[in-house]
């Protein structure tokens, strides 16, 4: 018999299950249109998403995360892969295990890590108060509401991977006194650096802030009995944890410091400057929820020393405002997880109100039922329909796949025009040396009605990691300022092996002009049809570098 008594664990299970269902419905089921494996990038709405997927092909080909693919490094084989690796590695492992495409496993890993983060944070709150934890669940629903959703569809994925490890570390931190826990804490702290290194820095913020709070509270006792204090024994463990994590991450931190931190300038961004439709501002969830969370945060401030989760959540809230003091996008993006980080404040407010209204001890059943009702209400209110493949059509993807499978490794490809290619990193997945004609130059040729031998193109290569190469065991240098790595410039229109023409566009004129160029190449320069589907046409140039305009 299932136990439905007022303090039965069944109620907790039910609330957690309803939250899981609501999150899956609002997030993955919504973005993927009810199908897990589309076999091509589905629900990818910006180039960042394509960038992180593209790394996996070379990871599987080379077997490791040491170097950037030569086709992303202008033919260089020694460019160091500087991006954090965890998320792509996990995606490749899942692809090997399930047989799904990388386009699918990438998204699955993101969603899995986010869902686990939600429940892991719930367990941290539960240590403080199980009823508050139950009442905090509904706020998590906002993870897949408007604006927050763009973090998923636009490909802010390594952030979620790093944050998942960060939350795992916070869980360990809240139980650090337990035997064996420092070992798991060191692993999780190291895993943050490998997943999204800015969260590693924020972990240091959290530790420093909590330490300061504890010192402020009991500095008199600490001055007298420092070595015998609980503070000393606990923070000795934390310091050892930090040292162990530094040892584990050393190899990658050497790369990180000399790439992402090379020439680093503080950024002072605001949600407004970045576009309010993309970044979370204080009022994004609506004024009433903002007031509720703010009120809960104030209550949390009054009882700050009751439990570590209150201190942690306060620091995480403040980290969300460090964009104003130089952390820029990294500080701003932590706001995507406010529904998780600040959920304790929402739960705390409900708990205080309910205990004062009901004038008696709250049962698990009451908390779970209220939580379930609010989850349903929030899910209904904040559901944002997404659907659709996103930036790239299935046909364009099939064209890219064809190029990968049927052209020589050293072939180069010119993308003439396509709606998706203004975000050129989409073409990282061509897995060949690729260029795309700049839209302005394409428009100028179309207006002039004549092709030119020299066209202005964007060269597709990865400059996110500063294009570094090793000069010693611990030292790196950079290609990025050499002429070879100019992102845009003149190219010979006839100097490519393959030409890709999109046959579908939001602008009908480009479809016609693409078709006219393709016709000209086929008739005047004997280009042959290499591949065609309803969305793209790929032509092969029989005489690369010859006169294709004759």
């Amino acid at each position: 018999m299932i136990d439905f008594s007022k303090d039965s664990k069944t109620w907790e299970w039910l609330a957690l299950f309803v939250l899981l269902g609501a999150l899956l419905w609002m997030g993955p089921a919504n973005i993927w249109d009810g199908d897990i494996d589309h076999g091509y990038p589905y629900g990818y709405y910006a180039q960042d998403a394509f960038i992180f997927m593209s790394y996996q092909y070379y990871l599987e080909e080379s077997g490791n995360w040491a170097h950037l693919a030569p086709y992303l490094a202008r033919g260089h084989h020694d460019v160091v892969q500087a991006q954090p690796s965890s998320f792509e590695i996990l995606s490749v492992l899942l692809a090997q295990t399930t047989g799904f495409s990388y386009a699918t496993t990438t998204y699955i890993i993101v969603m899995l890590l986010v869902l686990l983060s939600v429940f892991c944070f719930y367990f941290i709150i539960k240590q403080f108060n199980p009823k508050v934890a139950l009442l905090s669940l509904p706020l998590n629903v906002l993870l897949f509401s408007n604006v927050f959703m763009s973090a998923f569809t636009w490909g802010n994925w390594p952030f979620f991977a790093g944050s998942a490890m960060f939350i795992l570390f916070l869980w360990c931190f809240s139980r650090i006194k337990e035997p064996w826990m420092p070992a798991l804490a060191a692993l999780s702290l190291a895993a943050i650096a490998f997943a999204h290194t800015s969260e590693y820095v924020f972990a240091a913020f959290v530790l420093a802030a909590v330490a300061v709070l504890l010192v402020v509270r009991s500095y008199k006792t600490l001055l007298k009995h420092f070595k015998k204090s609980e503070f000393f024994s606990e923070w000795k463990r934390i310091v050892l944890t930090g040292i162990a994590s530094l040892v584990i991450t050393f190899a990658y931190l050497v790369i990180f410091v000399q790439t992402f931190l090379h020439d680093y300038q503080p950024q002072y961004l605001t949600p407004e400057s970045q576009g309010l439709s993309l970044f979370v501002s204080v009022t994004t969830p609506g004024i009433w929820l903002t007031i509720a969370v703010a009120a809960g945060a104030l209550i949390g401030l009054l009882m700050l020393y009751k439990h570590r989760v209150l201190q942690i959540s306060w620091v995480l809230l403040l980290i969300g405002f460090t964009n104003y003091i130089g952390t820029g996008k990294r500080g701003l993006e932590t706001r995507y997880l406010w529904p998780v980080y600040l959920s304790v404040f929402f739960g705390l407010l409900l708990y205080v109100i309910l205990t004062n209204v009901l004038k008696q001890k709250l049962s698990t059943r009451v908390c779970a039922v209220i939580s379930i009702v609010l989850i349903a209400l929030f899910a209904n209110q904040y559901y944002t329909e997404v659907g659709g493949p996103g930036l790239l059509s299935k046909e364009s993807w099939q064209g890219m796949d064809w190029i990968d499978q049927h052209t020589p490794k050293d072939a180069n490809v010119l993308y003439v025009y396509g709606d998706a290619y203004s975000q050129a990193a989409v073409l990282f997945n061509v897995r060949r040396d690729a260029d795309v004609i700049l839209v302005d130059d394409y428009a100028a040729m179309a207006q002039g009605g004549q092709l030119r031998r020299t066209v202005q193109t964007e060269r597709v290569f990865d400059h996110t990691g500063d294009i570094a190469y090793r000069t010693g065991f611990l030292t790196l240098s950079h290609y990025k300022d050499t002429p070879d790595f100019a992102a845009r410039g003149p190219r010979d229109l006839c100097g490519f092996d393959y030409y890709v023409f999109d046959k579908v566009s939001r602008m009908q004129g480009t479809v016609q002009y693409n078709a006219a160029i393709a016709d000209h190449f086929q008739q005047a320069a004997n280009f042959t049809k290499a591949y065609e589907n309803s969305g793209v046409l790929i032509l092969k140039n029989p005489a690369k570098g010859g006169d294709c305009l004759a």
Partner: protein
Amino acid sequence: MHEKLKRDAGWALAGIVIIAILLNVLFPDSGIVTIAKLLGGIVWLFVLPGYFIMLPWRETIELKERIVVGMLAAAGLEAVASYYAGIAGLHIRSHSWLFPALIIAIGIVLAHSKRFMKRAKASGPQ
């Protein structure tokens, strides 16, 4: 010990079946084979290794918390191990079966180590 493992396995299996049903409802265009492959992959890569990583806390932390935290821990451990193993020359092709199997094997050995389990048991709730 074996009784507890059996009981945990029973609960975990029940959880997987319930999640499979939920996925079947929410992803109507995915066949049962796709859902089975997905859950099989997640169980192999994250649930099983995670369960064994969390063995030292089996007396103090309840199963659902250990599964959630263990899955995250397994993800972190496999990602870091795979990074270094790849750099050391072990191709990633072998990592998806090697690392989960290794973590599970070490977990089973530790579960049978009286000294280890005694220490874990002695930890008790704080």
